[in-house]
């Protein structure tokens, strides 16, 4: 993937937006304004943003809970994200689910569930459809080191490989599954080695080096796009905060955390950009002001959005019957199709920025 100067700044902006948004989400949690659990991913930004940067329109991400960065790259709207965290009635899940459990197939985002690893077989179905429909699209599915120990992970890798699916698996190895270090989870050094068992290429890279992530994932994406089947990329990073914001993570040795804090992927990338005068103090100040405004707007919008009406809790358990569009094909947004829009609200799916105007969020 050729990286232009403008592109590099865009990547940096996405990484900062991800970090600052999570910092704000944490504040909202500490202020008691987010009622449920909060999971953040400080240190993952090079991996999540870098991996998603390798995709094109029509490709699909199948993210997990620490993948805000992927959502941001794919154009998911900060307003949608904040409405979701604050459980508003106009959130993508209508307040029925929390965290980053949001999706929109037309925007190429599959909503996750809390059973980590369970999205990987679903990613197989997305990629299977792309293959059956003879498209040149790719699905990119992520999971943590913890989820690589589930049956779903192994079933999905084997299924994807035996079906030669256009699918890239990205493992975000951040050292811990909740409080359990990788040494107690598996007996191998590199999770990428698991690829060998399924007959696909596997590569371990420095997950805090955005260039390394883009190169490795980009190669895997191209391979998938060319019909050569799935690959596994392990991005080694570190979870410098707790599993959730309720977890002090005092089980992580202080020196280990300090070591990884010093390897912060955003600082590292900023140093590079400053060194080559791609980022300047002026540009940086402009980016930071922009990000601050975006997040203030999103929080303000969410806080002024209505709470869900308790009387609606039993609505929309079943989808209405009728014709279904094959997502990504011509005419898929024709309202004659039940899945062309959110048939619960009668409005377009709206987690991505560009769709917000249509639902009156802008």
């Amino acid at each position, binding site marked *: 993937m050729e990286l232009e100067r403008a592109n590099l700044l865009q990547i940096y902006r996405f990484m900062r937006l991800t970090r600052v948004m999570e910092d704000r989400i944490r504040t909202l949690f500490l202020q008691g304004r987010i009622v449920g659990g909060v999971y953040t991913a400080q240190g993952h930004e090079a991996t999540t943003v870098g991996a998603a940067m390798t995709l094109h329109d029509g490709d699909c991400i199948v993210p997990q809970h620490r993948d805000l960065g992927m959502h941001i790259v794919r154009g998911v709207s900060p307003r949608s994200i904040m409405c979701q965290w604050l459980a508003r009635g106009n959130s993508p899940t209508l307040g029925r689910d929390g965290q980053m459990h949001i999706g929109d197939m037309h925007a190429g985002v599959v*909503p996750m569930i809390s059973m980590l690893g369970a999205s990987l077989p679903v990613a197989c179905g997305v990629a299977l459809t792309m293959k059956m429909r003879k498209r040149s699209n790719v699905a990119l599915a992520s999971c943590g080191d913890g989820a690589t120990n589930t049956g779903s992970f192994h079933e999905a890798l084997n299924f994807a490989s035996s079906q030669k699916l256009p699918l890239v698996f990205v493992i975000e190895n951040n050292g811990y599954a909740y409080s359990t270090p990788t040494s107690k989870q598996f007996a191998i050094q590199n999770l990428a080695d698991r690829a060998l068992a399924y007959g696909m290429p596997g590569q371990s890279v420095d997950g805090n080096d955005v260039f390394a992530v883009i190169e490795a994932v980009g190669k895997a994406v191209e391979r998938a796009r060319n019909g050569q089947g799935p690959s596994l990329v392990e991005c080694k990073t570190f979870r410098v905060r707790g599993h959730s914001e309720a977890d002090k993570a005092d089980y992580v040795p202080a020196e280990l955390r300090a070591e990884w804090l010093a390897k912060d992927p955003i600082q590292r990338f900023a140093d590079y950009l400053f060194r080559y005068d791609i980022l300047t103090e002026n540009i940086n100040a402009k980016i930071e002001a922009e990000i601050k405004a975006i997040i203030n707007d999103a929080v303000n919008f969410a806080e002024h959005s209505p709470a869900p009406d308790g009387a609606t809790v039993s609505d929309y358990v079943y989808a209405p019957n009728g014709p279904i569009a094959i997502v990504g094909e011509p005419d898929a947004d024709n309202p004659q199709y039940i899945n062309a829009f959110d048939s619960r609200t009668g409005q377009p799916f709206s987690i991505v920025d560009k769709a917000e105007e249509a639902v009156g969020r802008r």
Partner: protein
Amino acid sequence: MNDKKVTYLEAIGQAIREEMLRDEAVFLLGEDVGAYGGAFKVSAGLQNEFGVDRVIDTPMSEAAIIGSAVGSALMGMRPIAEMQFIDFITCGFDQIINMASKMYWRAGMPVSMVIRGPSGGGTKGGPFHSSSPEAWFFHSPGMKVVVPSTTYDAKGMLKAAIRDNNPVLYLEHKLLYRMPELREELPTDDYIVPLGKAIVRREGEDMTILTYGAMVHQCLKAARILEEADDLEVEVLDLRSLAPLDRETIQESVKRTNKVLIVHEDTLTGGIGAELSAILAQDLFEYLDGPITRVAAPDVPFPYAPQLEAAFLPDADKILVAARELAAY
């Protein structure tokens, strides 16, 4: 034998084939479903006709099979995921309960998929090839659960399930697959049997039997004996669709007969009968002239030896005993 008559099993195969011809979004995936035609030969010939991309032989991976069905349904396809034996559905439980059934409610995206497979016992299948898993899924909002008992319904309900925009669990009783009495000549025109509608299989005024699946036939047998030997007119109501449940037809029948016997092959506690009993007790308390009575398998795992299997499974004799006691109340 009339050559135009087909078996329950052939009707299922016809439904899959006709829907695949009608809609290119429909495809079948599962273990051994392709060249081999499936463990029971439900999909015999389909891979030849539609190719390996639409009749997909998968690894032995129920989570991957069901998960792939969910993912392709989200993309707008209409997958049919076969469980080689419905017992194996437990290996894919998470994909059904947490992924498929909650998707529309929380994300607004329909999951238009069918999971189907042979259920039920009576074939000496033992604890892992005989189960009736409907209650687990009946308890999961967002799932549809259907259990056809006739050849006509097997075809019409599968077509309706494939066209439905929700995850549908379609349970085909393996004992009915090739049962000669169920051979039937089916309409040549396209037809569906709408999900959510029960049907009265036999009319009567003295008692209503609520049942479904293979037990419909045991109940009909018992009802014939009760008519001849006891002069009792027993109504047999085939629920067909457990979720959604046709409360209206149930209520209409019980209001007339005032006595209810519930019969299912699945074990008793927490079974479909438990919920039916609660609904009847709450909604029709004043119409009941006797205790709501259940005939179901005992609360034990499904046994293997013929003597144990016979002791376990409800049948016409056990239904007769309960029905006579209820009639005499």
